[in-house]
């Protein structure tokens, strides 16, 4: 890159067959990825999935074992970190403790011999609303403020590619929301390419144009947030990105439009174009908020005709109220546990533990997985392990798969 000038616009990033092995394990397995210039791309995955390693490879802080890294059409695989037109917002901020906030922000500009570095640093600090603290040391700032300084320090360089390593992890919810919007604004305003690494699926969905879900060093699925959410291809994606009810059963009927699957003595129909596997044992799923809770048995005949699936009767075994919605866990004999998210249209839960209920959903909302039943069980287990805090829910999803 020519000294003293900014990148005109964002550059695209291409990873070709990237593999990274550390002594004892493989962090990334033959990864291919193309990120178009000017996009906001999120790498989403649990800790240890290789997403941070991918970022460090792009930044030049690690060397790939195999493969090429191309930024803006230029192969940078063999170049050093300081020679790449890339800046990183580190998870730990890594603000230099011996310099003022202003000098921190001006650091990259000075190294590249950009004119009037201090003016530009002030400008970047104004963008993150911290110009009044320019003379302070990073140690005197709060976590959220340090976060914003780290962002300003990277953005001020107008890198062709900005790498964000879980940059909002340390912030409280309110500030995180605000920073998410600010980041998005900066990205659109400046037109840079953002590569954002996160384990927070909500953050990824809010901010990114494209999400790649990573698991065990490989990309499981890539696409727009809505696409990934509404049509997950694997059990891992189905349960890492939100939650899903998954059912495994034999295909008993197939037409060009619809696939019928027998699950625990009950029949479920999903649209054929939403099901990549159409024979043998398949895993199908539906999102919990798509389910409708019924307190009386629907008329079987009219159900199929109106294009809905029904499961039941089952018993409510858990009700948990979370303000906007209530989560019901229903045990359906022969099928397993089914989770339903219901909006709180009335005050409080509509049924209580022990009640006999049926669930139904529109056939259009079902999806089939590419996973074989074994892969689906493993993927659901991984997602459950990754979810951590949501352990209960994910475990019940796992039981559903096995049932």
């Amino acid at each position: 890159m020519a000294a003293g000038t900014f990148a005109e616009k964002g550059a695209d990033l291409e990873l070709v067959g990237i593999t990274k092995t550390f002594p004892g394990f493989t962090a990334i397995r033959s990864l291919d990825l193309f990120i178009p210039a000017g996009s906001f791309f999120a790498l989403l995955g649990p800790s240890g999935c290789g997403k941070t390693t991918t970022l460090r490879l792009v930044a030049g802080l690690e060397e790939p074992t195999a493969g090429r890294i191309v930024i803006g059409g230029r192969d940078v695989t063999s170049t050093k970190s300081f020679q790449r037109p890339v800046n990183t917002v580190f998870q730990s901020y890594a603000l230099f403790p011996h310099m003022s906030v202003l000098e921190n922000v001006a650091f990259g500009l000075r190294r590249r011999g950009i004119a009037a570095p201090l003016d530009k640093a002030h400008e970047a600090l104004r963008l993150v609303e911290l110009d009044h603290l320019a003379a302070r040391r990073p140690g005197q700032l709060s976590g959220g403020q340090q976060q914003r300084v780290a962002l300003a320090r990277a953005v001020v360089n107008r890198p062709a590619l900005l790498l964000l390593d879980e940059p909002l992890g340390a912030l409280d919810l309110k500030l995180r929301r605000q920073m998410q919007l600010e980041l998005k604004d900066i990205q659109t305003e400046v037109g840079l390419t953002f590569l954002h690494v996160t384990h927070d699926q909500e953050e990824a969905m809010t901010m990114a144009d494209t999400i790649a879900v990573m698991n065990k060093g490989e990309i499981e699925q890539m696409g727009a947030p809505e696409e990934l959410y509404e049509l997950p291809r694997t059990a891992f994606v189905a349960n890492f990105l939100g939650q899903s009810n998954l059912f495994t059963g034999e295909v008993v009927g197939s037409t060009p439009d619809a696939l019928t699957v027998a699950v625990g003595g009950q029949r479920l129909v999903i649209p054929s174009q939403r099901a990549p596997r159409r024979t043998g044992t398949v895993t199908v799923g539906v999102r919990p908020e798509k389910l409708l809770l019924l307190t009386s048995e629907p008329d079987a005949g009219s159900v199929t005709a109106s294009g809905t699936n029904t499961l039941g009767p089952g018993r409510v075994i858990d009700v948990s109220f979370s303000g906007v919605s209530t989560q019901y866990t229903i045990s359906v004999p022969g099928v397993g546990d089914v989770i339903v998210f219901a909006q709180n249209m009335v005050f409080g839960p509509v049924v209580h533990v022990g009640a006999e209920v049926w669930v139904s959903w529109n056939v259009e909302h079902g999806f089939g997985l590419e996973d074989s039943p074994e892969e689906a069980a493993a993927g659901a287990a991984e997602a459950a392990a990754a979810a951590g805090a949501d352990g209960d829910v994910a475990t019940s999803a796992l039981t559903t798969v096995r049932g």
Partner: protein
Amino acid sequence: MLLLPGILYLLLFFITPLISLVFTSFQQPVINGDIGQYSAGFQWQNYTDSVMQYLPLILRAFGYALLATVLALVVSYPLAYFIGVKVRGYPLVQSLLLTLVIAPFFISFLLRTLAWKQIMSDEGPLVVGLKALSLFPNDGHITGTPFAVIFGLTYNFIPFMTLPLYAVLERMDVRYIEAGNDLYASPFTTFRTITVPLSMPGIVSGTLLTFIPAAGDYINASGDFLGSAQTSMVGNAIESNFLVTQNYPVAAALSIVLMAVILIIVGFYVRRAGTEDLV
């Protein structure tokens, strides 16, 4: 109240000998008395006389100490960086290398210096070898030269330089270095603008721990060890006045001058280095 034992300790073991030293430095000889017999007095001339007489030794002491400190820093910094940063992932290697740095302490300081005297003596392997290779004049010596004295000082104080540097570098977050590289700083620039400033507390304590004792050292420069009359430092003058010629007032005055000069130098140095700014 809790400070009381500490204050008493200081009064007893630091302030008392210091006061005694100050009194001694003003004493005058007893007229018609024995050698080494002095009485209380207020003889200012002790200071002016001793400084006039020993000025070259005072200057030499600070010159040698400065050179030894710089050399020790140049040797110790890469060493401490290697142990503290490069082999951070290998605790076993780290402990082994640290043990090697400390290992010389298991042998007496005097014995080690004498060993060097043997190695560098005119009949020793170094001189003989160099002469055999015609890299050294036939009438050349190593012992007794400023080179040998500065070498001895550097060698003897290297652990005092390495350990504080190691302590700082070992705790230094390498992510600062990564951030520097990420922000277009070449490895050298990163070292200059990030690593060195962040390790400043170690540099300051290491240089002080080397410079202060080196300036007052009288072993390395002594003719019995690596030095000769031409390499005498102020410490040698103090030693011979106290123990050989029994000129206690001059020795005491020289000690106080040495202490005062060190205090002034250290005071300026610490202020310049500005360690209080570092978090």
